[in-house]
């Protein structure tokens, strides 16, 4: 049964990572036109990536950091309410969660960011996205 619990936990982790991935991916998609415009105005790829990194990795860092801390608080409260206070602080799990979210987030920002930046300027005049 503990293996069943592990599967549940893994499934929620996978879905969580997927949703974060989609959110970042969507943001990249919506910014393609803005990025094409910036390229036309002479901004270097390096600067554009830098801006993306600052913005997204910054949001990811703070949001996921707070989220993981929030999860510790919430798990403690839930354990008091539902599981007779069965709770013990384990530093490894939240650290691992944070690192995984950052890894996935950073990877997507890097990959899709570069892809979005590489999009042809003609997309600016195109109606499709």
């Amino acid at each position, binding site marked *: *049964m*503990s*293996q*069943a*619990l*592990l*599967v*549940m*936990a893994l*499934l*929620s*982790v996978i*879905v*969580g990572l*997927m*949703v*974060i991935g*989609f*959110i970042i991916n*969507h*943001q990249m998609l*919506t910014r393609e036109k803005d990025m094409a415009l910036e390229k036309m105005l002479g901004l270097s790829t390096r*600067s554009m990536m*830098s*801006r*993306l990194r*600052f*913005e997204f990795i*910054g*949001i990811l860092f*703070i*949001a*996921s950091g*707070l*989220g*993981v801390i*929030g*999860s*510790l608080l*919430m*798990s403690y*409260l*839930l*354990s008091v*309410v*539902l*599981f*007779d*206070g*069965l*709770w*013990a602080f*384990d530093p490894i*799990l*939240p650290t691992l*969660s944070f690192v995984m*979210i950052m890894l996935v987030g950073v990877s997507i920002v890097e990959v899709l960011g570069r892809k979005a930046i590489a999009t042809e300027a003609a997309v600016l005049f195109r*109606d*499709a*996205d």
Partner: protein
Amino acid sequence: MILRLAAREIKNHPRFSFFFVLSVLLGLLGLTAIESFKGVVQTNLQSRSKELLGADLELSSRFALEDRHVKIVEQYFEDATHLSSLDIFSMTSFNGASRLIQVRAQENGYPFYGKLLLRSNTQYPGDATPLADNEAWIYPELATQLNIKIGDELPIGEAVFKVVDIVERDIQQSMQTGAIAPRVYLSMDGVKRGELIKFGSTVGYKVGFKFPEGVQIDKDKDLLDRIKKSFDSTVRISTPSSEEDQVGRTLAYLGDFLGLVSLVALFLASVGILYLFQAHLRHKAADFATLHAIGMERGKLVRFMLYHLSLLSMFGTVSSITFGLILMGPLKSLAFQFLPIEIDNLFSFKPFVLVLLVGIASPLFLSIPLILKASYLATRKNAQKVPVLAWAAWPLFFAILSFYVSKSFLVAGAFLGGIIIFLLVLIPLLRLCLNFISKVKVKNINLRHALLRSSRTWAATLSIFLAVFYCSLVFNLIPQLRTNLENEISVANPNVRPSIFLFDVQDDQVEDLKVFSSQSNLPLTNISPMVRARLVSINDEKYEIDTDQKLTREEERNARFRNRGMNLSYASQLNASEKLVEGREFSGVYQDESMESPAEISIEQRFATRLGLNIGDILEFEILGMPIKGKVVNFRSVRWTTFMPNFFIVFQEGILNDAPKTFLATFGQLSSQLKDKLQVDLFKKFPNVSAVDIGRVIERIVV
């Protein structure tokens, strides 16, 4: 026409539409997988708990149960069937050696759930031939210890019984009794023949009830309470989810945990969809304004947005359901291979109904206020406010869905409460931070650009932030709770946990036992002293309860708990199955020669909660006529499933060392043959020491 327009919108923006549908599909697929899996686990848990009890409801008593007891239950459940069983301790002997045994007799067909597996490869109830009045099935340890073979005859009571089979697996073995005395199954006629029931006999009477399909007594607490109140305190009523023992409590935890998992999956899927919707609507604001400018009325605009998003959601939902159906088969074999779960019928419509609701109805509720707002924006009616009811629709819908999937007001309430509190705190905080960020002057132009962009497009920033925050929150929530639960429910690895648990080892037998174990080359571990005591007062308030007054059933139960005394131990430090939760370690050995100051004590955390204890509380005990005071210095958690000797209350060394005591101990990892031999040798050399085979017990309590 609007519908065609919506369809064309999808066709004209293939990339966006694809990613939108993919997001919905994968989010919902995750929900389908979790719900399906959870359904399997829950079904398995429910059948497991029924098998452990053997019935849907059981009456048990030390006094004979009569027809009137049965009628009380039948008045609530007319179509219930019932059968009886008996548990009786007795003695048997063979080859010159005697053994305590637990005789179990049951009416043919009982238990209703759970089967005995016999060595002849037959099952009972099932294809095993029912016992005749002169036949018996015995546990394998009895066969080994007394060297009994099939066909041999055993004297039990006033008669002799022929051993016709050996029980290989019995899910209803009890920790307290069956592990000490091996079980022998007789028929009800056999019990009569053996004259085991006479005046003065100690018999455990049971009547089990089977209810019609669909009746789950555990779901109706009021009815269960009414039934319980119909009986006096001599009759105990048990249901599959009785929380009176470790298994019941564990099953309750798992149920709540699974409810939480569903909520998390639902929430994650909804966060993804919510984010996509609002981002898309914001992004398309200019397009909507254009459409309105060229003549599209607001009503049609609203319908257009609604149809567009609904079509996308429906594609995503239907794809998710299709994939889910296709994946059911491989999922079943995967689960069967890797998990100790028996899956008779994995397929259920329930997860798919939920996915339909979440995939179609949920986006509708979500999108209505957003679409209205977008339409006001597009038609320049900025001053017009979206009705509050429109905003409240989705949260209300989500709340109802949450209660449905978690099947518990407490679970859903606790979860939603947490989510809402974070939202109420974060939104104003983030707005403040973004305001602050917009005023920050930084030299790096790219950083400045990023900060300005974040603060200027605050709605987008807020939505990304909240989405990532909530994903991270729930992402870590389940693994965090799982780890804590697993410490509670999982049984220690067989290579780590002991094989035999010993108790009633006398003080003057400890050295002999050590010699015995080293001579036999067997690992003797965890030798722990046990001192019997009564808890007299807590902070000078009397603890025991007077029982010569009229008490309710619950008060009587509470009084029995308080008045029965407790087992204390002493140690210099925590053992491997314990973890300090609050307070500090012992400061060393008790030194006060005057014995005026209280000794330091450590309390198991759940026991502490039950007694309402705090760090610093003073407990007074009576130990064989001697008053001893203890001060609580710490609470610890105990993993009872390690099967190491553990105690609710542990004193520091130095104060109880001289008190009369017995010892508990364990023998480490042993093969079955060694275990059996050990039990025989132990019985010869230390006849007063009881040895429990832990492997047998685990078969029952492992969930």
